[in-house]
C-alpha cells in the first residue's frame, strides 16, 4: 500500500515564462525518418520514405516552403533515411537514400527538381564502410577501414575541441574515434554497449564527454579520452537518438526505436526517471534537434507523420507525479513508512536566504527516501488481544457454562468487556436456571473482574477501559448510548440481585407486570418474538417508565397481537420484552425464544468485524446455535481461519476445523493428508509401511546417528534427505552443521 501525503512540489528548472514560443505541430503526410534544422533555425527539413519537405519555422506554425519529392520518376533516391543541412550554405542539403546512395540537393536550382547530384559509392545500406565525401569535387575524399561491422551513426566532434575528430557507432557496440587524416585505424576504440549501438552525441561544452545509446536500452556517458563510463541511464526501450540539451551540462534528450513514443530529457545524475517528458507523438519519434543555444525549445519528427516544436513549459514532469511515500501496516500491527528525504532541500532553502535562488534542476537530483519502521505500536493496531483470545478460548471439552465463563474471563483479561459480557449473557440465557447458585457464581466472577480493571484505574493510559468498567459495573445503565453496555445491561438484568430490581422497577410496578408473564406462560414455547421486537443493542429507556407503558398497553400482549400489530410503539415493546425477560428469569423459566437475539448478537459481532467472537460463540453454542444460513456461517469460519493463518496459529485453526459443525469446514483437514514416501535406496514408493522397503528388504531412513529404524518423530533434511531421531539430530546439530551421515551436505532444518 502506498500513500501520497502531499504531492511533492514541482521541481521545475527555471522556465523562462517570457518565452514567446509555444508547442505546435504539423502533419507532414508521411512517416518521417529524419529531420534537421538550418543554421539560423529558420527552416527545417523533414524526410522519410514517402516525404521530403522543407518548412519555414514561424512563430506559431510551420509553413511549407519546398516539397523536394517532385519529378516524374520518384525512385528510391527520394526515399530518405537521414538528412542534413550544410553548415556553410543554407541552400545545400544532403540525404542518405534507403538504397545506399547519398544525394545532394541544391535549393537554388531553378528547376522544379532540386536534386543536384548523387554519390553511388555505398553499395548497400550498412555495407560496413565509412566514407567522407567532398561535395566540391563530387567524389569520395577518404574511406576508412572499419573492419567487418557496420556503422550506425557518425558524429563530428564539435570543431572547437578537435577539428579532425569524429566518432562512429558500430553495430558491435563499439565506439570508434577517428582522425580524418588517418584512414587505416581509429585513434581510439572502446566497447560501449552489449549489442548494437544506434546513436552517439558529443557533449557541446565538455570536451571529453560522449554519449552513446543502443539496443541494450541504456544511454551511457563516457569520458572518451579514458574510455571510462561516467553515467548510465537505463531507459525502457532501445535508444534511437540522443541529443545533449544546450546550456544544461547534465541534460540529454532521447527517443526510442520501439515501444516508447515519448521524448525524454534526462538528468544523467538522476538516471532513473526522466527530468522532462514530451508525449505529443503518437508513434516513435525519429529526430530530435535542439534550437541553437536555446535549452527550452527543440524540434522533433516522428513516424506518426508529425513534426513538432516543443517548449519546456509544456513538458510533463514525471518526477512531480510520482508517489513520494509508501506505507503499510502488518498484521502484527507494525507500520513501515518510506518517505522522501526532505532534509537536503531544507538545507538548500537555508542557504538560499543568503544566496540566489537554488537551481531547481539541482533539487531534482536530490531524491532519496528514508524508511522507518514503527514497532510495538499503538494499542489500536495491536492484535495481541486476538492472538491471546484465540489461544486461550476453550471451545470444547467442558460444560457449556464453564466454557462461557472461562471465555468471558479471557475476554476480560484482554480488555474486551463487551465480548466478556456477551459470553456471560450466553451463559445466563442457556443455563438451566438454578438461580441462586448462578447468582452467586456470577457475583464472584464479577468481583474478580472488578478487581482487575480497578488496578488499571491508576494507570493514566487506559482511561477508556476504566470508564467502560464503571459503566458495566454500574447496574443502572440509564441513558447509556454505548451499545456494548446496553447488551451487557440486559444480561445483567437477569442476574442482578433483587435489591436492584427494586431500584429498577419499584415493588409495586413489579407486581403490576406479573400478569404479563402469566399470559406468556400459557402461550408456552410456541411463542416467538417478531424479529424487530428485541433489539439487543437498543437503548433502554428510563426503567421507571416501563410499568407505565405496560399499563397503557394492557391487556397484556399475546403473540398474535404482537404479530398483528407491527405498528405498535417500538420502544414500548422493547421495554416490555426486556421486562418479560427479566421477570421470567426470576421465576426460573428458560424456555424462551432467545435464539433471535443470539442470532442478532452473532451477526452484530460479524458486522463489527469481530469474526472471532462470532465463530467461537457458534462453536460453544453447539446445538443451541440459532439457524443461520450455512453460507454465512461458512464465510465466518473461513474468515476466522484466514485470520488465524495470518498469525500462524495453526493449532487453533485445526482445532476449530475439527469442531466445526459445517461439512465444508470440517472437510478442510481431510484434504491432501497423504504423504508419499519412497525408499531412499531403490526409489520404490512405500505403500504399506513407512519404514521397511518390500523390494530391497531394507530398513529405510534409519537414524543417521544411532543407525536404528526410527519409529515416532523422524526429522530429515530436505536437501540431502538424511535424518533420524529428533533428539539425536538436535544433539548432532549442536556439534556440527554438516550431515551426520558424512555426505558433506550442510543440512537445513527450519
Amino acid at each position, binding site marked *: 500500500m502506498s500513500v501520497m501525503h502531499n504531492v511533492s512540489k514541482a521541481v521545475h528548472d527555471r522556465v523562462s515564462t517570457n518565452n514567446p514560443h509555444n508547442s505546435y505541430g504539423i502533419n507532414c503526410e508521411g512517416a518521417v525518418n529524419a529531420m534537421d534544422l538550418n543554421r539560423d533555425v529558420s527552416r527545417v527539413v523533414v524526410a522519410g520514405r514517402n516525404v521530403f519537405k522543407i518548412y519555414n519555422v514561424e512563430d506559431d506554425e510551420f509553413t511549407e516552403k519546398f516539397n523536394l519529392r517532385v519529378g516524374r520518376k520518384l525512385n528510391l533516391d527520394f526515399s530518405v533515411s537521414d538528412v542534413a543541412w550544410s553548415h556553410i550554405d543554407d541552400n545545400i542539403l544532403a540525404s542518405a537514400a534507403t538504397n545506399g546512395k547519398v544525394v545532394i540537393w541544391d535549393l537554388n536550382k531553378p528547376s522544379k527538381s532540386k536534386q543536384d547530384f548523387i554519390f553511388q559509392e555505398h553499395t548497400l545500406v550498412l555495407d560496413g564502410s565509412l566514407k567522407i565525401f567532398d561535395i566540391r569535387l563530387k567524389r569520395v575524399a577518404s574511406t576508412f577501414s572499419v573492419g567487418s561491422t557496420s556503422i550506425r551513426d557518425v558524429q563530428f566532434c564539435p570543431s572547437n575541441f578537435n577539428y579532425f575528430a569524429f566518432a562512429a557507432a558500430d553495430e558491435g557496440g563499439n565506439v570508434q574515434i577517428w582522425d580524418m587524416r588517418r584512414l587505416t585505424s581509429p585513434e581510439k576504440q572502446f566497447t560501449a554497449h552489449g549489442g548494437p549501438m544506434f546513436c552517439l552525441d558529443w557533449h557541446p561544452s565538455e570536451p571529453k564527454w560522449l554519449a552513446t545509446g543502443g539496443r541494450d536500452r541504456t544511454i551511457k556517458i563516457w569520458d572518451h579520452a579514458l574510455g571510462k563510463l561516467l553515467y548510465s541511464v537505463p531507459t525502457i526501450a532501445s535508444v534511437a537518438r540522443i541529443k545533449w540539451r544546450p546550456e544544461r551540462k547534465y541534460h540529454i534528450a532521447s527517443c526510442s526505436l520501439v515501444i516508447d513514443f515519448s521524448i525524454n530529457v534526462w538528468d544523467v545524475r538522476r538516471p532513473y526517471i526522466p527530468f522532462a517528458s514530451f508525449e505529443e507523438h503518437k508513434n516513435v519519434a525519429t529526430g530530435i534537434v535542439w534550437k541553437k543555444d536555446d535549452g527550452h525549445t527543440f524540434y522533433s519528427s516522428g513516424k506518426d507523420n508529425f513534426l513538432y516544436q516543443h517548449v519546456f513549459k509544456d513538458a510533463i514532469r514525471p518526477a512531480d507525479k510520482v508517489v513520494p511515500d509508501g506505507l503499510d501496516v502488518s498484521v502484527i500491527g507494525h507500520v513501515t513508512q518510506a518517505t522522501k528525504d526532505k532534509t537536503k532541500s531544507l538545507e538548500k532553502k537555508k542557504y538560499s536566504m543568503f544566496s540566489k535562488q537554488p537551481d531547481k534542476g539541482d533539487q531534482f537530483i536530490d531524491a532519496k*527516501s528514508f524508511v522507518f519502521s514503527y514497532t510495538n505500536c499503538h494499542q489500536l493496531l495491536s492484535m495481541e488481544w486476538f492472538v491471546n483470545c484465540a489461544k486461550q478460548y476453550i471451545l470444547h471439552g467442558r460444560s457449556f457454562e464453564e466454557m462461557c465463563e472461562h471465555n468471558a474471563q479471557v475476554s476480560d483479561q484482554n480488555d474486551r468487556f463487551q465480548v466478556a459480557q456477551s459470553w456471560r449473557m450466553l451463559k445466563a440465557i442457556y443455563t438451566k436456571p438454578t438461580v441462586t447458585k448462578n447468582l452467586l457464581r456470577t457475583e464472584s466472577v464479577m468481583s474478580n473482574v472488578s478487581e482487575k480493571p480497578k488496578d488499571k484505574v491508576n494507570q493514566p493510559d487506559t482511561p477508556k477501559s476504566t470508564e467502560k468498567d464503571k459503566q458495566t459495573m454500574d447496574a443502572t445503565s440509564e441513558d447509556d448510548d454505548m451499545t456494548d453496555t446496553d447488551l451487557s445491561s440486559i444480561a445483567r438484568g437477569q442476574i442482578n440481585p433483587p435489591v436492584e430490581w427494586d431500584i429498577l422497577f419499584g415493588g409495586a410496578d413489579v407486581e403490576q407486570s406479573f400478569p404479563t408473564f402469566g399470559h406468556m406462560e400459557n402461550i408456552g414455547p410456541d411463542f416467538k418474538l417478531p424479529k424487530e421486537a428485541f433489539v439487543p443493542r437498543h437503548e433502554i429507556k428510563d426503567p421507571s417508565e416501563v410499568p407505565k407503558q405496560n399499563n397503557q398497553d394492557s391487556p397484556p400482549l399475546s403473540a398474535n397481537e404482537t404479530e398483528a400489530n407491527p405498528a405498535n410503539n417500538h420502544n414500548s415493546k422493547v421495554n416490555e420484552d426486556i421486562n418479560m425477560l427479566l421477570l421470567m428469569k426470576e421465576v426460573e423459566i428458560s424456555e424462551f425464544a432467545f435464539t433471535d437475539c443470539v442470532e442478532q448478537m452473532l451477526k452484530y459481532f460479524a458486522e463489527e468485524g469481530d469474526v472471532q467472537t462470532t465463530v467461537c460463540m457458534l462453536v460453544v453454542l453447539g446445538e443451541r446455535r440459532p439457524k443461520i444460513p450455512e453460507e*454465512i456461517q461458512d464465510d465466518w469460519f473461513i474468515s476466522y481461519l484466514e485470520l488465524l493463518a495470518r498469525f500462524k496459529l495453526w493449532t487453533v485453526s485445526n482445532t476449530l476445523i475439527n469442531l466445526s459443525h459445517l461439512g465444508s469446514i470440517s472437510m478442510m483437514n481431510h484434504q491432501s493428508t497423504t504423504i508419499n514416501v519412497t525408499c531412499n535406496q531403490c526409489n520404490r514408493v512405500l505403500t504399506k509401511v513407512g519404514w521397511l522397503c518390500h523390494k530391497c528388504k531394507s530398513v529405510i531412513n534409519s537414524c543417521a546417528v544411532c543407525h536404528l529404524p526410527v519409529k515416532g518423530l523422524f526429522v530429515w533434511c530436505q536437501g540431502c534427505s538424511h535424518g533420524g531421531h529428533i533428539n539425536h539430530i538436535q544433539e548432532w546439530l549442536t556439534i556440527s552443521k554438516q550431515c551426520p551421515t558424512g555426505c558433506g551436505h550442510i543440512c537445513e532444518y527450519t
Partner: protein
Amino acid sequence: MFVTRHIPTDHQDLIHDVSYDFHGRRMATCSTDQTVQIWDLQDNGEWKCTASWKSHSGSVWRVTWAHPEFGQVIATCSFDRTVSVWEECVGDTGRDGVQSNWIRKTSHVDSRTSIMDVKFAPKHLGLLLATCSADGIVRIYEAPDVMNLSQWSLQHEIMCKISCSCISWNASRMHAPMIAVGSDDPSPSAGGKCQIYEFNSANRKWNKVESLSVVTDPVHDVAFAPNLGRSHHLLAIASKDLKIISLTPYG
C-alpha cells in the same frame, strides 16, 4: 508507544511502496532506482535485507505479495509498462544469511503506458493478478495452474476511460469478485475518481457498478478492508482527504 527505527536502505532514489507479506514477517520495498528489496524480520526485531535486484527498466511503482499458499511470490509494476511476477528460490546456500534469489517467472507487456498498480486477487479466486495502467485500462491475468507461475493468460481488459492510479480487490467470499479503481486525474470535471467494478458470472464480464461521485479529488490509493464476514464492504480512499465508504450490496 511507538518505537521508531530507521532502516538504512541502499535505494538510490525515491521509494514508492513498502509492502508486508501475509504474516507481517517480510517486507518488500520498491524504488525509482528500478530495484526491489526484500527484508526479513530477524528475531531481534531488526529488518535485514535478504535480496536486492534490478527488476525493471523504469521506476518500480508498487510491489505486492501473493498469498503464501502460492509460494513466496511477489508482483511488481513499473514505469517501463511491464508487470513482473517473481518467485523466491532458496538454494543450498540460502537461509543462513546468504542472499536469496528471486527469479522472474513472467512479465506482462500488454500495456502501452506506465502501470500504476498491481494486486493479487484474494486467495479463493485463484491466482489472479489485476493491474491498472496510466491510460485507464485494468487488466486481469490468471495463472490457471497455480504450480506454474510462468504461464498466465490475460482474462479481462476493462476500459475505465480515466487515468488509473490504484486498484484494490474486495476480499469477500460471499459476494461476486469486486475491484475498486482509483484515478489520479486532476480535473474535477472528469467525474468520480473511484470506480467499482463487479464480475458478472453470467456473461463472464466485469461491469461498472458504481462511480463514486463524492470523490472528485485525485485518488492516490484505495483499499478494501478485510471482509471478515461482514455483509457490507468498507473501502478506504486516499485522496486529498481520507474517505471510508461503506458499500452495501443490493438484495
